[in-house]
């Protein structure tokens, strides 16, 4: 729901447009199925967070464009702030851990190659960092939208 709302911040999008934008925003991690997408849109519409913007017919096929409502922007801003606060806490603790030295926490463990996980695979992006980036993206987009609308989202 968070990603679907974020996908609608900058402009109204139609069903497949939302799928593509969510895929792009998540770096390919979240690939919405069409059945799931319409379940999400139904819920967001029922809660008044998205609304129908317009209908177009492209090559004989119906496209419905959905837009973020003011309530949707407020809900997304609240969720983005919550995620950003969580990510900030995680980042601060990781910084403190790096300052004190992580090796002191596990003196008996065998030295590992820096930058590699215990499984030997290359480390993936930390969840806290990913959440922080996503939340900041959503907040920035909301701020840009508010500036463009001349009001507060």
């Amino acid at each position, binding site marked *: 729901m968070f990603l679907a709302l974020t996908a609608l911040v900058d402009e109204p999008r*139609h*069903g*497949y447009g939302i*799928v593509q934008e969510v895929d792009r925003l998540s770096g390919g991690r979240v690939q919405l*199925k*069409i*059945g*799931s*997408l*319409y*379940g999400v849109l*139904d*819920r967001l*519409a*029922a*809660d008044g967070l998205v609304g*129908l913007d317009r209908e177009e*017919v*492209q*090559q*004989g*096929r*119906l*496209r*419905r464009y959905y837009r973020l409502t003011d309530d949707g922007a407020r809900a997304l801003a609240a969720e983005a702030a919550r995620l950003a606060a969580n990510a900030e806490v995680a980042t601060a603790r990781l910084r403190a851990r790096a300052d004190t030295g992580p090796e002191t926490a596990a003196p008996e463990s065998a030295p590992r190659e820096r930058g590699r996980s215990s499984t030997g695979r290359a480390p993936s992006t930390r969840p806290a960092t990913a959440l922080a980036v996503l939340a900041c993206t959503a907040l920035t987009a909301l701020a840009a939208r508010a500036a463009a609308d001349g009001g507060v989202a």
Partner: protein
Amino acid sequence: MTEPDPVLLEQRYRAVLRLLPASYRAEREDEMVAAFMEMSGEVPDERGPRPRWDEIASVAALAVRVRLGAPGAEPRLVAWGEAVRLVALLGVGFQALISLYSLLSLGAAALLVEPPSARHIATTMANCAWIAAYLAVMRGHVRRAKAAALVGCGSSLYVLATGLPVEFLGWSEAAVALILVTTMLALLAGFHRGVQPARRPWGRAVAPLAVAVLPLTLEAPLIALMNAMPPADSEGLMWAAFWLGPEGLAILAVLVAGAVALTRRRSPSVLLALATAGMLLAAYRLPVGLPLEFNQPLWVTGVVQCGMLAVMVSLLLVTGIRALPAGRPASL
């Protein structure tokens, strides 16, 4: 506007979308087909394109959610969804009460008769997962409720399948399995992502569990009397025993609740949920494959209970279905 040529893939997507209710299709079908076709690209018919299985599964899941009252569903489907969730609540509550009753019986037997076997203790404790499931669903924690109910259901089915030699497994065991599976399916399907579960206060969640003491307090003096009397004289008490056990009391509860719901004109969801509970209990009590001479009190009581349930279920079903909102197209 130019109409695109009908293609095989589009026809197949439209066939998949027939899983959805007609009212939902009327609103969404063209838009969803457009999204599917954009996603798939224009694939020549000669390649025999087919919808992907994960896309079919997502449409099937959406169909279940919409048919059980997800946002966007018509009021009639919302009422059916509410009925299914009530069936789940009644079923999980009933299993929780049976588990607590078994636990209390186990404790009483351990104190008064003899220590139970390790297997008996283990299965009774595992069945208590139903209590956790009941409390979780009453408090609005649906995921935890589903996980706990899966443990409870697995344990109950295991006890059912291994409690008797295979040649003695019959109708009543099949009926119990039906009750367990129906409860589990209603919980899994009814409490879907589109539902905001109610979070009841602890007092309201815990209080109904006290009912588990009732069959114990009613049965204990009866069993003591039956043990004290000669077998020939104690037959009269057996007639009462089939009304005072957990299943007998559940049947009485459904009959009373059904009568109250009918007279107070409760919502169709309540009527249909009680009708389902009545049908499941009647299936359990039906004396199928049990000769009359084997146990006359059990046989006759079963017939009487099934007869009363049949009348109540019929009234609940007719009134409930007639009271359902008329079907109308969904709107965004």
